[in-house]
């Protein structure tokens, strides 16, 4: 699908790539239905709260150093600024750099919903520019400003010359999509629209764009890539506007999570011919090797990469095989974004753990290039199947599943989710850091972490014994799909 950066609006994942948030069935059915085009997601007549796409979109942009985010809306929308401030301080400190990124709100009130407040927005943009001299400015809408029709595009165009730095309108109305990952696309779109420049002539580089969240494995990846004569450019946490402006010059783009990297990767390929590494991700042994080999192929470095794989296998595979003995036969339920659910499922199978149910917070039928996501394709090609559902973090469905299956562990990646599993008496493993299962070394650590989590269940038992779960007996007797209904 062609990516149109001349318009500041990005189509939602639902409309662009047919993503869904409601499905209950099996992995094979989900995949075959999406391949033949018959998959139709369901909606729910009862749902629990999830995540706003603006949290993802503006959270990504706020990770960039020395920029300004202006969130035009009521104070609740821009409350993310408090966490953005904290993240910007601690993440830059961890890396040994500084950032003066600011995230401000406009505290819109009732009068503004009637009379509009574009002139205030204009003043706010100019004042923020004067106070902080940001390297770029992102001006975002909210549900309220979107519905009353505040024309943020015009305001941005109007002040462009005066502010003298890249400025871009970002459309973050939370009601647009139930898939918060649309926010990742929105941030990519903004960066592509105003920050990324065409490649400079004659510039040769060994840089590879690496889309991730919080760059915790940065030092070791730099070290590893050095052996392949590659230099990773991590995005967007701690990126500079200068770095981003040259993304088009890199020799490839790769990412830690397909959900996160898909839009930028495809757009850079489509617009500037920067190849996007399409592969299952780096989780687990097969994932890591497949990804490295794909990089080797795309960048012409296969020999160096094969040598690396051989050396590393010798160190780690015997150790991983040893831990696997303790994991054999355990069962797991997992709930994550689709960029991780189907990758982590593969790793669990690899470690000898049986996946009994996998929940994905949404499901992309196809990526921008028209293909089924690689992680799904891998599972299908290898004849792996299990029960699966798609639910935007619907905790009542998760609890229904955990109650029925009583697995040995629940794996999750989203804040506030693990405590619910342990109150059910199920040990929970929080796969928070995106590099927690990266490569041989972290796969080994991950396996050992599972062993530790299973070994000492004191905390789970203590809490489960003393707490009452909030769901009714009636609900536990229902099928998981009770509240799903076909989209009309």
């Amino acid at each position: 699908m062609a990516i149109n950066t001349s318009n500041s609006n990005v189509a939602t994942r639902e409309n662009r790539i047919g993503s869904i948030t409601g499905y209950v069935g099996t992995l094979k059915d989900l995949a075959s239905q999406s391949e033949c085009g018959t998959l139709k997601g369901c909606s729910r007549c009862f749902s629990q709260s999830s995540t706003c796409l603006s949290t993802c979109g503006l959270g990504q942009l706020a990770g960039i150093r020395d920029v300004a985010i202006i969130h035009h809306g009521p104070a609740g929308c821009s409350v993310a600024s408090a966490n953005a401030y904290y993240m910007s301080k601690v993440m830059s400190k961890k890396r040994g750099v500084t950032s003066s990124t600011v995230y401000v709100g406009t505290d819109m009130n009732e009068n503004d919903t009637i009379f509009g407040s574009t002139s205030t927005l204009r003043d706010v943009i100019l004042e923020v520019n004067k106070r902080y001299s940001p390297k770029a400015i992102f001006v975002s809408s909210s549900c309220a400003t979107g519905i009353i029709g505040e024309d943020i595009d015009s305001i941005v165009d109007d002040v462009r010359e005066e502010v003298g730095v890249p400025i871009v309108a970002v459309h973050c109305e939370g009601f647009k999509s139930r898939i918060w990952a649309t926010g990742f696309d929105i941030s990519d779109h903004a960066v592509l629209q105003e920050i990324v420049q065409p490649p400079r002539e004659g510039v040769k580089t060994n840089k590879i764009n690496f889309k991730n969240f919080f760059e915790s494995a940065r030092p070791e990846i730099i070290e590893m890539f050095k052996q392949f004569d590659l230099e990773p450019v991590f995005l967007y946490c701690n990126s500079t506007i200068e770095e981003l402006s040259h993304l088009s010059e890199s020799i490839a783009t790769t990412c830690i999570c397909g959900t996160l990297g898909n839009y930028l990767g495809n757009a850079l390929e489509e617009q500037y011919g920067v190849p996007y590494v399409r592969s299952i991700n780096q989780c687990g042994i097969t994932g890591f090797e497949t990804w490295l080999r794909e990089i080797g192929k795309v960048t012409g470095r296969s020999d160096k990469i094969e040598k690396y794989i051989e050396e590393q296998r010798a160190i780690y595979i015997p150790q991983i095989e040893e831990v696997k003995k303790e994991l054999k036969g355990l069962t797991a339920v997992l709930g994550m974004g689709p960029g991780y659910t189907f990758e982590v499922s593969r790793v669990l199978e690899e470690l000898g753990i049986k996946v009994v149910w996998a929940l994905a917070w949404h499901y992309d039928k196809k990526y921008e290039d028209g293909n089924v996501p690689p992680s799904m394709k891998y599972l299908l090609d290898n004849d792996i199947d299990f029960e699966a559902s798609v639910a935007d973090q619907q905790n009542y469905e998760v609890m229904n599943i955990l109650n029925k299956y009583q697995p040995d562990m629940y794996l999750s990646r989203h804040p506030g989710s693990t405590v619910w599993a342990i109150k059910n008496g199920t040990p929970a493993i929080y796969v928070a850091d995106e590099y927690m299962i990266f490569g041989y070394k972290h796969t080994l650590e991950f396996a050992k972490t599972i062993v530790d989590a299973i070994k000492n269940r004191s905390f789970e038992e203590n809490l489960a014994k003393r707490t009452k779960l909030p769901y009714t007996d009636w609900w536990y007797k229902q099928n998981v799909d009770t509240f799903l209904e076909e989209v009309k």
Partner: protein
Amino acid sequence: MAKLLDKQRYKCALGAMQSVQAITRALPILHSGPGCAQKLSESIGSSGYFSPNIFPCTSINEKDVVFGGVKKLNSTIENALKVIDADLYVVLTGCIPEIVGDDSGEVVSRFEDADKPVIYAPTAGFKGNNYKGHEQVVDAIVEQYLKKSETKQKGLVNIWADVPYQDLFWLGNLRELEKLISELGLTPNTIFGYNRGIENIDKIPEAEFNLLVSPWVGLNNMKKMERKLGIPYLHYKTLPIGATETSKFLREVGKFAGVAEEKVESVIKEHEDYYYYLIERYADLFLENRVINKQFTVVSDAHYALGITKFLANDLGLVPAKQFVVDDTPKNRREEIAEEFKKLNFGLEAEVSFETDGFKIHEEIKNHDYHGYPLVLGGYYEKEVTESLKGNFLNVSYPVQDKVVLDTSYVGYRGGIRLIEDIYTVAVQRFN
């Protein structure tokens, strides 16, 4: 009117979902976009019997914006009653339904005969901040759930103080206020926190009076309860921290409630004796350390700005530099609150600025002469600016990133001691 919110210290009215959550077994049902609950919750200490990620939510989409979301609201309430075991269901509306004109009140009224009470509070984000939203929730309980009681329970006092979760110390503070009131021989009643819930709400109309400990938040609720439920109120504006203010507080409450003076004085004496036993032992730390000077600044909501200013000035003999109130206090309340800052020992008066623009606050802090290292108690935003001035910083107000609080309290005699411990724990980590 909209304004530049630089270094934001509050949420929107829908943030009152946290006030509902603080009532044990009360469940917020959000008629809002899918991500409001997550945004408006803290990442630490937000779980419990319910947590924001299990709050039922209509998760309004584009179609609902065009065609209205009442049908979805109806099915969400209906099924919430079936799926989730709560004592009270509180429907809270966000921005979208109020702009597109959903009649949420009508939908809620369809559940009048449900087994459990379902009430409704309009809390669109643009209607005000979460301090106002908190008042809306209490109002909804008073208006839609409570009825006037013909009988009163002798000595029963409803206590209203902090805005739960917005205030890091809300749980501990309420419990400490209860203890103090109990020591006077009265029976406290609060609705927030462990072991408080619908039964305490049911008791509200039987109280002899309402005690509001807050500069302004909740005053509208007191007036409403006076009108509707016939409950008189005592408005004590200063959060009592430390001996001076707590003793004053006990005397005032005792007088209002008709507690014998000897009883009040004996409670005070017992506490002050122990309090000054501790202060005497540690006085040389306060007098002889090299890093805490006399001048301090508090950047907080009116509640803590006033309480801490009085404590540091009247108990510890420090001198207030400018104080900043950042909760967007309603304009008609500002003058009387500013007056309270002028009632300090030895005729001292603290200058106070009602300011929501953090940039301006930081400029003023940087430009003030603290005669040495400044002591700043504020939100996490003040950490960096205080460090750049080589000052001492304590994170006491929103946003909080530097502190984990389970049930600590800054209220009362014990609370004053806790605050001293926290301030001097910062101080002793350095030499000069």
